[in-house]
């Protein structure tokens, strides 16, 4: 399973970095040759240089049903075309798009691309609600790249079931923030016994996250 | 519905395609003149009498609103239809306040423009028959000596058509009936200043001046 990012620029670069730190495989598709060359040198990912609105180019990114695609170009019509190709030609189930002109949100949603976001729209409504930047930082104490939050479900057959939290041996730097059990929120402590169906909220430093993910994979 | 015979329309817009379009729509039914700027428009307005003017709100150099203001200062006000581009609400409101009869947003279809012209010309027609009606009733009132009623109707007419020579003329008839000849002359002069070609006022003025002259002569003769 991988994430395909379509587009170029700072946004694509930082999103790629962020996703890589979370353990995802990332492929970039971009028309911009320079960007493709630069990013392939600085980040460990697959790069396809070409017009993403052409089927042949998108095919080179080897999209599959399980993959996630995010369209991030500066032109809404290109993003729409990419989304359409991804869903109709490559049967991708999870397609996200950036929509530059908020007026275009309607057509994206009408065509079934529910996960379309217009940052212009978000910023505009923030300004309208007069939320100051400071308030935002306090509200979401997650500075991008420094701390990350993971949700993990304890599935049937997991070796963690029946064990006490303190016994499980989570990597250092990972904190179990809370456990959601049958709709109730529990504040865990070392003696909390894990049950099937528990949802753990794990807070960790970004540097530690790949370790946490690896640990969880082993524990499955 | 009866549209006035060969009404005359003026279209003022700097875009050739708009002038062509409106001209095409009314060609045959009406006489259509076009102007591409304010100067040309004012020129044509001096030479011809128009029943309706189409005016573009966003003409460069002299804005449509300015031209509208200039036109209002003239004599008999002509109904003006302002043409605006989609979304310019403030300008449109300004235009209406200045007395534009109606507003039509570009782009408009042939149906839209035909409809708005028909409505305005019909209104004009109704108004004119209304005024003729009122004139008749005022004269009737004066004939039977009901000066009070006549005066009230004239004042109503003043309200409806403040820049028309007709109310002043009719008021002079009221003055005449009351024996206030100096007042009558004042109003007749006012009437003629609004429209120097208004025959009824000219005739009445001449009449009053002749009769006062001859009554003065009689007075002099009697005294001597």
């Amino acid at each position, binding site marked *: 399973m991988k994430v395909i990012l379509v587009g170029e620029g700072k946004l694509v670069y930082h999103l790629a970095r962020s996703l890589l730190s979370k353990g995802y495989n990332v492929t970039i598709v971009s028309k911009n040759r320079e960007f493709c060359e630069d990013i392939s040198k600085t980040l460990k990912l697959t790069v396809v240089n070409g017009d993403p*609105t*052409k*089927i042949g180019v998108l095919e080179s990114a080897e999209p599959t049903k399980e993959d996630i695609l995010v369209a991030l170009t500066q*032109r*809404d*019509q*290109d993003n*729409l*075309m990419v989304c*359409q*190709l991804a869903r*109709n030609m490559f049967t991708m189930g999870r397609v996200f798009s950036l929509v530059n*002109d908020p*007026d*275009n949100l*309607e*057509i994206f949603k*009408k*065509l079934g691309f529910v996960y379309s976001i217009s940052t212009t729209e978000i910023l505009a409504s923030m300004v309208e609600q007069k939320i100051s930047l400071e308030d935002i930082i306090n509200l979401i104490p997650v500075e991008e790249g420094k701390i990350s939050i993971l949700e993990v479900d304890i599935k049937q057959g997991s070796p963690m079931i029946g064990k006490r939290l303190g016994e499980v041996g989570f990597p250092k730097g990972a904190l179990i923030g809370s456990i959601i059990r049958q709709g109730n929120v529990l504040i865990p402590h070392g003696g909390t016994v894990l049950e099937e169906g528990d949802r753990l909220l794990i807070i960790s430093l970004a540097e530690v996250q790949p370790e946490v993910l690896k640990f969880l994979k082993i524990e499955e | 519905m009866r549209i006035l015979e060969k009404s005359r329309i003026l279209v003022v817009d700097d*875009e*050739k*395609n*708009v002038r*062509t*379009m409106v001209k*095409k729509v009314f060609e045959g039914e009406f006489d259509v003149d076009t102007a591409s700027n304010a100067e040309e428009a004012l020129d044509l307005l001096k030479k011809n009498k128009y029943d309706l003017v189409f005016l573009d709100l966003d003409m460069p150099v002299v804005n449509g609103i300015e031209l509208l203001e200039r036109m209002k200062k003239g004599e008999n006000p002509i109904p003006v239809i302002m043409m605006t*581009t*989609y*979304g310019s609400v403030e300008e449109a409101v300004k235009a209406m306040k200045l007395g534009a009869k109606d507003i039509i*947003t*570009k*782009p*408009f*279809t*042939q*149906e839209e423009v035909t409809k708005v012209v028909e409505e305005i010309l019909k209104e004009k027609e109704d108004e004119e028959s209304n005024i003729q009606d009122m004139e008749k009733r005022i004269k009737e009132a004066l004939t039977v000596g009901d000066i009070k009623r006549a005066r009230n109707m004239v004042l109503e007419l003043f309200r409806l058509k403040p820049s028309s020579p007709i109310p002043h003329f009719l008021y002079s008839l009221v003055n005449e009936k009351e024996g206030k000849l100096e007042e009558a002359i004042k109003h007749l002069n006012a009437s003629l200043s609004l429209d120097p070609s208004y025959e009824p006022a000219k005739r009445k003025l001449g009449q009053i001046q002749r009769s006062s002259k001859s009554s003065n002569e009689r007075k002099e003769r009697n005294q001597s």
Partner: protein
Amino acid sequence: MKEKTLYVVIAGCGAVGGRIAGHLSSMGHSVVVIDRDEKAFNNLPWEYSGFKIRGDVAEIENLKMAKLKNADAFLALTDDDNTNFMVTQVAKKIYNVPMVLARVNDPSNLKLFEEAGVLVVSPVILTVQFILSFFLGEDAERKRKV
């Protein structure tokens, strides 16, 4: 009997768009053309009696300005397939314009447009068909001799 006049909005005032606009308006229809390049309007015939809107057709605001909701037909004739795709979708799905047509420059995109219920015209396919008609069929030889 006079035919009904239609309200037609055309996106793109290139060589094709300009001429179509001119023909439709002289046929008596109400036409609006949208193009972001002022010079493109030079493609309109001098007796054009429709309207012009200068703006990027990918900005929905310009389609609103053109009163697309009242249109009987919408023609997407820009030279960019992606733009033509997005605007025809808007015309069809949001404004319910009865007739929606797109110019499709890259034949590999044809299927996408057709599946979306848009009428298409493909300059490449038309040209290919025209040339092949000189080589195929019964009157092919006759044609070549002209």
